[in-house]
Every structure is written in structure tokens, then in C-alpha cells.
């Protein structure tokens, strides 16, 4: 896309420092205010649409070129590997813990976000760490780790380019793989001038170079590195981290202490399963055969190794934080299969609602898009996120895109059904009343016909035919403004009236004409 010669105003809504409110809004979270802002921000929608459409197209092409008609079998295999691990997670976790400890890593157990933060802070304190370099990790966003470290006096720097810029801007990621899809180069240029004292440039290569040099200065002084994990390998005790920029290498190997924060769903049985899952992960995310750096860490530096974390310097924090509640619901269609997710982001890129919503901020949580719409309510409570299961047209693109065959549309429908059971949200009551009225009318044909004729007459009388001419072929007229709650429809499009005659009259006339009036 072309870039304006002069900096323009900010594209996303001005965030509060830290971007905390974006991912940790007051609960219950309602989507409407952010959606209203996003749907009016054409530029934001264009950024998100361009970025996601391109990745979606490239993903499909790369799978076609690599696997052809075998793709279905490969996805089924990947799904069965993850599902098998989840179904026997206690076994594989024990195996992982034993092997990781044998390799010299220290394993910690965090039941919730607060405990995970406390463990990190204790490690930082025990190692006298003052400067932490951090690689991009959604789970550390989930536990709000960075503000906790900063509050405890450990300066913490996001080193992924996108996350680094978001941190400078006090903003929050809007996509789980490519966090900065809601910003353009002018926003980066302004942030670098303001926060780093860099000369103004809009050249992405120069901007990347500025960040590279700045962060190298920090890597040289950092004493603590923090990363997430893409996989935990049970039979070897290895942690697998996939990145493209190389920043994670500095956070894993360049500091004396390395903390890994990983959700328990990251387990896989053995290294052989990486041969299947890695082939799907990078292609699903960015259409690459593999990420540039696929790193397997098995314990700290060995005795004669010239670099890597100290003996006792590798800490793995296993995080539950609501995941066992999903695990509890196994069986076909149960919530357990949501934990198969490998966070590739393919469902976000495929989703028309994600595009229209201007990216992840509209979802009010760390995990956004279709997977977020089922994961967030499952982890944080349906009553806290009553709108998310409705943030979908159920077109099915997300389910088609998922490399581990999570039936996302089915989970959306299941959550909607559960919400009805809970009597949530309040809008559901109005919907129930409408359905009750409809049921009543359908059971009383005369009343139904009377009601239909009445609404036809009223709507056609109100029709103003909007800005366009009426369609002569369709015998339809148009309403450009409906009253009351129905105004939500006409804010964005006109509403068609019914034709002058209803189907029954049309059918009677049609049949009469067909039989030439012989038998009437």
C-alpha cells in the first residue's frame, strides 16, 4: 500500500498506557462500543483485511502445493496426536516433568495467573535480575506478566518487533501471530522518534534496523530471558520455541536465566510428532515451510558449552489457569478439543467478522478471532464474555482453516445453547419472546395470515425506497430507517419490504393460470 507523505492521525483508538484495558476490560465485556468504533474506521478495516486476506490466500496455496489431496489426512493425524495427548495429559505431563528435571531444568506449577506471576517474580528476585528481555508469547499476555515484572522493578522489554512497537506505544496486540496488523509504518515512525530519539523514517527496512540496534544494546545487558513455548515434548523434556526474527534466541540463550511459561495443552508425546505438527504450524500461520528458527531446548548449558543459561538457570512454569475445566469436558464435541489449538492464527485470517471488527481488540481478551470466541468464554466464564459466541456468522471458514480440526462453528453453537440455558445475555429474553410469538402465530393460521397482511401493508406504506430506485423485477420496496431496536439493521443497510402479494395468493394465481382455469 502507498504511504502518506506526512504522518496522519492514529489509526486505532488512543490506548491507555500499557494497553491493559484492551485485553483486560471491565467484566462483563460487551463488544458493541469497540465494534461501533471499528466499523466506522475504514482505514483500520483495510489494514486488517489486507493483512489477513493475503495470509489466508498464501496458506491455502502452500498447503495445496505441499500436501495436495492428502491435506485432510495430515490434519486428521495432527488432530489425533493433540487429542491423544490431552486425553492422557496426566501421563505425558509426568513424563515431561521427569525428563525436563533429568536434563537439569526446574519445573514449577501454577494453578492460576497470580501464582505464575509470583513464581516469575521469585525467580527474578532470587537471581538478582534487573533487565528482562522477553520474546512474544500469548500466555505471558494471558497472565499479565510484564506489568507485574515492571512493578517489581525488573525492567522488561518486548523484543519481537511488533510487540516492541506496541510496548513503546502503550498498545496491545490485535492478532495472536502478527500482533501489529492494526498499525501502519507512520505509527512506527512516530513511536521511534518519540521514544527512541530516532530520525524520522517510514522505510520498513530502516525501522527494523533501528529496533535491531536498540535491542542489541539491551540483549548485551539483560540477565533474564522469558519466552513461551510452542510445544513441550514429553519423552525428552524439551521445550520447542518457533520464531522468525531471531529475538527468541537472545532470550533463550543469551541470558543467565531463562524462564519458559507454557500452558499444559502444549504437551506432545515425542519428538517424532513434531514432524507432523511443525509442518502444519508455520504453513498455517505464514505459509512458511518452517519458522526461521525452530529451537529445541533441553535443560541448561552443558558443562563445556560456551553459552546458554547457567546450571539451574532454566525454569519451566506449567500453567493451568482454567485449562483443566476444559479438560474435564471430554467426549465428542466437548470443550476439551479446544485445547488442541496450536495458536497458528489461521482461523483469525480466514474470518470475515475478524476483518470487519478491525482485528483482535474488539474481542476484549488476549485470544481473539474465532478461536478466542470459544476459548475466552471457556477460560474466563460465559457470563463475562456473553457476546463472543455470537461474533460469528457461522460461515465455517474458521473450521475449514483449523490445522488440528477444531470444529469451531460447533463450539460457537454449543456455547450459544449453554448461554440460553443460563438465561444470558439479556437480549436473549427479547429473542425468546419473539420466537414464542412466532410459534403462537404458526399454530393459528388465520391469525398468521392476518398478521402477515398487516405487517406487509405497514412496511410498504412506510417504504421510502431509500437512495436507489425500486427494483422493478422484484416488486420490493426499501426502508432506509426502521424505528426502535430494528434501527440497528438500517444503520448499515436498507431493509427490503415484502412483495405486494404473499406467497399463498401468488401460488393460487399461479396454479390457476397453469391449469388454464379448467377445474376451477
Amino acid at each position, binding site marked *: 500500500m502507498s504511504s502518506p507523505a506526512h504522518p496522519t492521525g492514529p489509526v486505532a483508538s488512543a490506548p491507555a498506557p500499557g494497553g491493559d484495558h484492551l485485553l483486560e476490560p471491565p467484566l462483563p465485556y460487551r463488544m458493541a462500543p469497540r465494534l461501533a468504533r471499528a466499523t466506522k474506521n475504514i482505514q483500520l478495516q483495510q489494514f486488517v483485511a489486507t493483512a489477513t486476506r493475503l495470509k489466508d490466500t498464501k496458506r491455502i496455496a502452500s498447503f495445496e502445493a505441499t500436501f495436495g489431496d492428502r491435506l485432510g489426512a*495430515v490434519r486428521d493425524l495432527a488432530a489425533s*496426536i493433540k487429542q491423544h495427548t490431552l*486425553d492422557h495429559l*496426566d501421563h505425558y505431563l509426568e513424563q515431561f516433568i521427569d525428563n525436563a528435571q533429568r536434563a537439569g531444568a526446574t519445573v514449577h506449577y501454577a494453578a492460576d495467573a497470580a501464582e505464575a506471576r509470583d513464581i516469575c517474580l521469585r525467580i527474578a528476585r532470587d537471581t538478582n535480575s534487573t533487565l528482562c528481555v522477553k520474546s512474544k508469547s500469548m500466555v505471558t499476555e494471558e497472565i499479565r506478566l510484564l506489568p507485574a515484572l515492571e512493578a517489581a522493578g525488573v525492567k522488561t522489554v518486548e523484543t519481537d518487533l511488533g510487540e516492541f512497537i506496541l510496548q513503546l506505544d502503550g498498545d496491545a496486540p490485535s492478532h495472536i501471530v502478527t500482533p501489529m496488523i492494526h498499525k501502519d509504518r507512520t505509527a512506527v515512525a512516530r513511536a521511534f522518534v518519540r521514544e527512541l530519539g530516532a530520525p524520522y523514517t517510514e522505510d520498513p527496512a530502516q525501522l*527494523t534496523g533501528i529496533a535491531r540496534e536498540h535491542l542489541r544494546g539491551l540483549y548485551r545487558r539483560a540477565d533474564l530471558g522469558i519466552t513461551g513455548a510452542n510445544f513441550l515434548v514429553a519423552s525428552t523434556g524439551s521445550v520447542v520455541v518457533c520464531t522468525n526474527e531471531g529475538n527468541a534466541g537472545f532470550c533463550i540463550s543469551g541470558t543467565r536465566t531463562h524462564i519458559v511459561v507454557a500452558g499444559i495443552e502444549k504437551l506432545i508425546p515425542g519428538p*517424532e510428532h513434531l514432524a507432523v505438527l511443525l509442518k502444519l504450524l508455520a504453513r498455517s500461520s505464514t505459509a512458511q*515451510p518452517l519458522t526461521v528458527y525452530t529451537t529445541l531446548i533441553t535443560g541448561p548449558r552443558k558443562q563445556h558449552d560456551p553459552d546458554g543459561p547457567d546450571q539451574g538457570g532454566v525454569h519451566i512454569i506449567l500453567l493451568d489457569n482454567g485449562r483443566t475445566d476444559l479438560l474435564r469436558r471430554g467426549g465428542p464435541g466437548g470443550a476439551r478439543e479446544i485445547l488442541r489449538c496450536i495458536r497458528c492464527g489461521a482461523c483469525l485470517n480466514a474470518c470475515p467478522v475478524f476483518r470487519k471488527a478491525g482485528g483482535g481488540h474488539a474481542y476484549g481478551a488476549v485470544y481473539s478471532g474465532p478461536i478466542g470466541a470459544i476459548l475466552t468464554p471457556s477460560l474466563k466464564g460465559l457470563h463475562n464474555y456473553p457476546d463472543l459466541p455470537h461474533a460469528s456468522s457461522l460461515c465455517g471458514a474458521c473450521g475449514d482453516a483449523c490445522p488440528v480440526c477444531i470444529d469451531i462453528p460447533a463450539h460457537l453453537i454449543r456455547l450459544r445453547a449453554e448461554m440460553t440455558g443460563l438465561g444470558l445475555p439479556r437480549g436473549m429474553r427479547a429473542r425468546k419472546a419473539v420466537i414464542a410469538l412466532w410459534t403462537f402465530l404458526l399454530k393459528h393460521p388465520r391469525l398468521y395470515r392476518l398478521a402477515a397482511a398487516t405487517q406487509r401493508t405497514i412496511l410498504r406504506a412506510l417504504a421510502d425506497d431509500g437512495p436507489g430506485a425500486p427494483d422493478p423485477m422484484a416488486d420490493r420496496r426499501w426502508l432506509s430507517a426502521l424505528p426502535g431496536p430494528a434501527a440497528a439493521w438500517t444503520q448499515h443497510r436498507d431493509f427490503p419490504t415484502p412483495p405486494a402479494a404473499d406467497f399463498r395468493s401468488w401460488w393460487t394465481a399461479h396454479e390457476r393460470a397453469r391449469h388454464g382455469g379448467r377445474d376451477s
Partner: protein
Amino acid sequence: MTTRADFLARIRDALGRRAEGTPIPPPPTDIDTARTVPRSATDLPARFATAAAAVGMTVHRTPAADLESCLAAILRAAGARRVALALTPGMHRLAAESAARAAGADILPPPSSPGFEPHYDADASITDVAGAIAETGSLVIASGPHAPRAAFLVPPVHIAIVREDQILPDLADFFPTLTPNTLPASLVLITGPSKTADIEGILITGAHGPREVHAVLTA
């Protein structure tokens, strides 16, 4: 504080299991379903070269006798003045040392204390590999006494010497060979120069790691 026992008990309870040690069925083993390069493929160097070029590496193929001049030419083209060597003692190391001398570059001393430090001063590095993958064009690099992790990450130009017989067809031939006893502390598959597309999706090479990765294939 949550203990290992508490943590696992909660998971066991969620899974509806009565006790630990319940026998479980074996995990899926039909890894070959995802294979894209046949185990019997005979043109592995050519396949590797194509895949590595596709992800942005520069591939050189040279007879063993010309290894030194090939390395020297890459160092000269990169304008390298200081070179880090991460090679086990042997023919490749000797060739790399001569190449550095021929290109007029100094060889960095080994690190005096654990860490990345001397590598920030290097313009280029020359490393061995533990293997390579034809399918993806990946270099496999294992940490070890002669293989600092900084070598393939910190200098802006990384040159990796790959013996053709080190190339495996597919990821499905590589990962099943890993065991707890043979795994180094760090094992990295490198698939291209470091990259980012965070700014407007525009691909930039040389994000935090090398801008150039050269794979030198030799017999």
C-alpha cells in the same frame, strides 16, 4: 503453593482417572502420512538447494578441494573483517581458518566467560551443522563445546558448511532420531535468514539475527 502432586491430581480428576499409572494406548505413529520427500530420494543436495533458496538462503556447491576458496569468496563479498569460527577440529576448521586468512579477516578469540559477548564484534561466522533437511532447506545446529549458540545468531552473516551426506530427506526422517541421551542443550533448525513482516506485512530480512545465511554444500 501448588505442588506437583496437587497439580497432577487436578488434571487426573478432570480426566476422570482413578489413579496414576493407568495404562494408556500408544500415541499415533503413522508419521509418514505427513512425509513430502520420499525416504528413497536420491537427489537430496539438489532438493535441499531448491528449498533453501526458496526461504532466502544462498546455496553454494563446491568440491572439498575448493572449500577454502569458496569460503574466502563469501567472506570477501561480505566485507568481513572479524570472523567467528564454530567448528570442531578437522578439515572444515582448517579450511575456514585458511579462508579467513586469505580474505584478510581476523578470527575472533573463543569466549573468555560464558555468554554471547565476543560475537557482537563479528562480521561473519562459519559453523558446522549437525544435519540438514532437504524438504524444508533447514540447517540443523546443535550446541556443544565448539558450537556456541551465538555463532549462528549474532553475526550479520552466517556461513554453514554442510556435507552432502548429512542431508536427510524429510522432517519425518529427522525428529524420530532424537532421544534424551543424544539431545544437546540447544538444537536449532534454521530455515532462512532472520525475518520480520511486522510492519505492514512487508518482508524484511535481518531482523535480530543474520541478514545473510550461506549454505556451503560439499562432498
